[in-house]
């Protein structure tokens, strides 16, 4: 069974600890929300799981292979083929049209131009923005850009989609539409989703929630455990 695993992942920025031993499993087809207050390590965890950052200690494995020991080139290849990444601001290439942006990951993976464009158009259609295929990001609204970015993240039909506050820059209704489409498409393809958010309403789209606090998984938030350290603000 396909699995993404983190075991005792530690990461610091200089002397500032960001992750202090995170252990987490994501199963095939599962949508997991990673939540917690600002600075709790949510985004750092996502970057470590996606192979963008290398942990200082601990392991990250994908389908039984430890990817934290892989070279940057190998992890980068993994991100082009099996992983998709979506950030708060779509980070579309300003000079390219929507269709060119969406086709980009396929072109980088060696797909022929015509096939890549056909796939890009089909994904823009699924996200409801087919009419924007030849528009550039500067000509689109924030919601339209994020739909294109979602199409770009899904065009390679990744096994895992990493989404970092994907609706953070959108109004409630637009954010909801983007997220509903993202979740529906992910479920159709049995794509795992790791969804970083600090919004309870967004986390509610996931199958389960992992709460981080001070760089650790806060198990106390999941039940009736009363053994919290006293005196914490």
């Amino acid at each position, binding site marked *: 069974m396909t699995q993404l695993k983190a075991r005792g992942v530690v990461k610091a920025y200089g002397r500032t600890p960001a992750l202090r031993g995170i252990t987490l499993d994501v199963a095939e087809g599962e949508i997991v929300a990673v939540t917690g207050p600002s600075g709790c390590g949510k985004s750092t965890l996502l970057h470590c799981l996606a192979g963008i950052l290398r942990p200082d200690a601990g392991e990250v494995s994908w389908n039984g292979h430890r990817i934290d020991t892989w070279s940057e080139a190998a992890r980068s290849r993994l991100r082009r083929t099996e992983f998709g990444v979506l950030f708060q601001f779509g980070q579309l290439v300003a000079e390219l049209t929507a269709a060119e942006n969406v086709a980009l990951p396929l072109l980088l993976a060696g797909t022929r131009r015509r096939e890549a464009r056909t796939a890009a158009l089909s994904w823009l259609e699924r996200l409801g923005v087919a009419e924007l295929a030849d528009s550039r990001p500067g000509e689109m609204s924030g919601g339209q850009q994020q739909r294109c970015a979602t199409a770009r993240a899904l065009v390679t039909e990744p096994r895992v989609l990493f989404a970092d506050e994907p609706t953070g820059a959108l109004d409630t209704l637009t954010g909801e539409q983007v997220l509903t489409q993202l979740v529906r498409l992910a479920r159709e393809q049995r794509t795992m989703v790791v969804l970083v958010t600090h919004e*309870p*309403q967004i986390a*509610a*789209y996931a199958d389960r929630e992992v709460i981080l606090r001070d760089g650790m998984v806060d198990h106390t938030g999941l039940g009736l455990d*009363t053994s*919290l350290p006293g005196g914490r603000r």
Partner: protein
Amino acid sequence: MSTPHVLLGLLAAGNRHGYELKRAHDERLPRARPLAFGQVYATLGRLQRDGLVAPAGQEREGGPDRTAYALTGDGRAALERWLAEVEPPMPYVASTLFAKVAVALLVADADRARAYLVAQRQAHTERLRELTAVKTAPSASLDDVVAADFAIAHLDADLRWLQTTIDRVADWHREVHS
């Protein structure tokens, strides 16, 4: 919620008897508590007494007689007034949620209050997830979506308060017992 005014609103669409009113209520307000038959008839009785609705004939479909009701002129005016009235923005500090934490802090320690908050947050989160599933289901009607949105927004506000209070509870306990 104001059941009398909701019934007046449903009658504004045309004459209906009690059973139809109950069905229309539960259909239009799918996340609200279903209306009991007894409540429908008791409310209709009061509305008739106040001259806001009037009987509009009997209907018999192989069963007992059923009285249909119509909105009167006064009833329509009352409905219009209600619709034009802005509801007072209620800070729900009188809610059981808030009271329970405050009492837990008085009679027990910060851990007890925190345990309650954590369990409550879990229950709220689960409900939020259920409602999200309801509104994102392909079969969801706009009635379902709008009603779920309303419940979600309120649960979301509660959740933010629960989280913030979890973080404050130790200081609050110290202040209560200082």
